[in-house]
């Protein structure tokens, strides 16, 4: 073996090593490992809360492990079938050729996209806040106010063509949510009142307000329950397939909005200002950037995006406004904005993942008897790992990255 060959061999090894090192430093690896670890812990939770597992442990240790693994597996299987559809059923339906049967078989997949849509809007809302250094916990309230504004426009404006009525209703939702973001934004920028407290308070005010509206002015005069009248036909978002598929064009609107947010953040001067204010307000100030204005506008946009999530639910899915119509989209949005590293692309991907998880979980609850709340537990695990990457790095022996560019920097409790 010549000297030359030896160095060549060494070089090859180095290339492999370098690749591994790059992988272990990449933030994406971290995210994926966080998700996997979360899923494993979730499966473990299912296993330890299944009574049969303990009975099997009485038989033998190995039997117990097997039963536990089976319980976790069947949970995730049900989750998969519920969110994507049962592949066997889909193939059978296509072979059978009955159109309704096919629609029913692929419905879970489209339903997951329907659930993803408000997540995209709300996730973008929280992500935009993070980018400017603000923690918008108020997305849930903004969703409610946006939905209330939208439903008002969609019920009481009559005789408009759909091409006008839909944009007007969406705009109403944007303005409603934007208003709910404006207040904490202004308070933050002018008095230093922390947006976390203010948005939490605004959430509760929004809940009470929509409760009041639904028992009073917005209540369906023909009904007894606190539900609004159905919205005008002309305000409904187009559905692309026949029943039972509820998939509507709102999904594409959400993708388009995500694209706009991406352009705004990364391709405009104002977006640069916004990110600078978020990353280092002091530097932004010395560079002559207007922090007050940027903060306020960012909060308005953030609230408006959340408002669109509410508008989307009203115009595309429910066609009316009910109490507690949003099952915590605004709160889940915090998790998925963190998971998506406050990047529009990341947010869309995480939103779709959350949509599939939540929709699948509904099926899982029905067929495997696992309460849907396990989704929140999964979220918490994943989030904890994302927020404290050191934990994941220690478990999987990953290398420290040189700089953590994606770290969320929030401004301190005390203002400024």
């Amino acid at each position: 073996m010549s000297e030359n060959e030896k160095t060549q061999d060494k070089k090859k090894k180095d290339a492999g090593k370098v690749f591994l090192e790059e992988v272990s430093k990449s933030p994406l690896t971290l995210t994926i490992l966080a998700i996997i670890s979360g899923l494993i812990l979730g499966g473990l939770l299912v296993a330890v809360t299944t009574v049969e597992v303990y009975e099997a442990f009485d038989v033998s240790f190995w039997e117990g492990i097997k039963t536990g693994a089976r319980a976790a597996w069947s949970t995730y299987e049900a989750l998969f079938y519920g969110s994507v559809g049962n592949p066997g059923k889909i193939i059978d339906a296509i072979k059978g050729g009955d159109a309704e049967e096919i629609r029913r078989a692929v419905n879970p997949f489209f339903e997951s996209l329907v659930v993803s849509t408000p997540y995209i809007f709300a996730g973008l809302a929280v992500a935009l806040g993070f980018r400017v250094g603000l923690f918008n916990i108020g997305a849930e309230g903004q969703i409610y106010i946006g939905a209330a504004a939208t439903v008002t426009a969609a019920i009481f404006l009559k005789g408009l063509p759909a091409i006008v009525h839909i944009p007007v209703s969406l705009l109403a939702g944007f303005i409603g949510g934007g208003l709910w973001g404006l207040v904490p934004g202004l308070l933050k920028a002018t008095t230093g009142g922390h947006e976390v407290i203010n948005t939490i308070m605004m959430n509760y005010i929004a809940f009470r307000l929509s409760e009041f509206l639904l028992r009073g002015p917005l209540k369906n005069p023909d009904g007894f329950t606190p539900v609004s009248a159905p919205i005008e036909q002309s305000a409904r978002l187009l559905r692309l397939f026949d029943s039972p598929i509820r998939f509507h064009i709102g999904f594409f609107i959400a993708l388009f909005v995500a694209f706009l947010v991406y352009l705004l953040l990364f391709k405009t001067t104002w977006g640069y200002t916004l990110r600078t204010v978020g990353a280092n307000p002091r530097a932004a100030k010395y560079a002559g950037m207007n922090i007050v204005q940027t903060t306020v506008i960012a909060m308005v946009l953030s609230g408006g995006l959340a408002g669109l999530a509410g508008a989307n639910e009203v115009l595309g899915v429910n066609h009316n406004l009910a109490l507690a119509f949003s099952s915590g989209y605004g709160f889940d949005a915090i998790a998925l904005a963190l998971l998506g590293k406050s990047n529009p692309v990341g947010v869309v991907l995480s939103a779709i993942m959350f949509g599939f998880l939540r929709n699948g979980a509904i099926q899982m609850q029905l067929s495997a008897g696992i309460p849907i709340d396990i989704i929140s537990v999964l979220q918490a695990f994943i989030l904890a790992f994302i927020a404290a990457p050191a934990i994941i790095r220690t478990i999987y022996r990953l290398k420290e990255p040189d700089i953590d560019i994606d770290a969320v920097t929030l401004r301190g409790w005390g203002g400024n």
Partner: protein
Amino acid sequence: MATNNNSANYGQSSPTRRRVMGIVFLVIAGLIYFIFSRTLDPGVQTTFKMVPGGSKQDIPDWIFNSLPLINILAGLSLLAGGYQLARGFKKRTNLVLGLVGGMFIFAFLTWATADGSLNLAGLIRSALVKAVPLTLGAMSGVLCERSGVVNIAIEGMMLTGAFVGALVGSLTNIYIGLLAAVLSGGLLAAVLAVLSIKYKTDQIISGTVINIFATGITSFLSARFLQKYQELNDPGRFPTIKVPVLSDIPFIGPIMFEHNIFVYAVFIFLIVLTIALYYTRWGLRTRSVGEHPKAADTLGINVFRTRYVSVILGGFMAGFGGAYFTLGSVGRFDELMTAGRGFIGLAAMIFGNWNPFGSFSAGMLFGFFDALASKMAILKVAIPSEIMLMFPYLATMVILAGVVGRSQMPAADGTPYEKE
């Protein structure tokens, strides 16, 4: 940081603030006169019942002519406003503000009850009961934040405490249930502490993670076990204990001294925590770590250990507050039963300026509006209860905005400490 410099010239004696306060008093006087007094017929009577329902004390109802009393209250507010503008109450401004606010509420009650009757004692008693979880939550926040760790996970800790209290209480007895609830709050707090002190995660994010986790795990376990096996969700409740002599005091006795241990615990914790924070070496150290950790470290105080201790103690407090829901109030666990009380507790803490008695006052105020909202239907006033219930949230935002006086948060609150 910058806030503190601002607050220096925002202090009690600044002329702007003096004038603003004077105008506020005058506006309140005007409101009392024009809204309440002008809309009443002379000769109308208001009846306040002075004994809460279920108590055996015998105090005659308090019946008086509504109009003169309201006019007197308006006049007093007017005087307060005038004096404030001319001379100023200086250090006592906030006290006077509280008094004037109280007069406004009293005038409102008198006006709303005109020609009818209201159980005043019952209202105050129910406000006190509703203030219990809020105050406990707020004191949990005080403990954590005085040492410089923001705790927005009070809600999650309380929910977990409520669940664990119900479950363990059903399996054993309520005393062990209570202990377990307290420990579970402490456990979550330990997670918060490790995440935010050791891993230096953003404290608001780690708090949010704990909230999500607590909502998920309690609902999950409740749906999986408590609903199927009802006997796991039947812990019983702590009995009402009449304090021997004190409960015989007229009016005050039945309001304050005929409760279960949770209400008395609030009184005790208030005193203990105040003394501990302001009159002991431990308190001084905790507060110094919250204000200026580097200086504290230089003086040889272990910043990390101090923070761990405070946060975990705060978790115990929140767990205790959570147990109130299951073991002190309802007697079983329902999903999401804390219903945002932890967040209102956080608001009460801010409102109360990060100190125990302030938190309690804020808790009482919020509890009062909560109690009043449920009485609005009886009073036949045109304010919907939903609007009434917005008050605590609005008030908190106003306080936070510094309209009534800058709140003084610990300077290092929310910033992880990096040892050099």
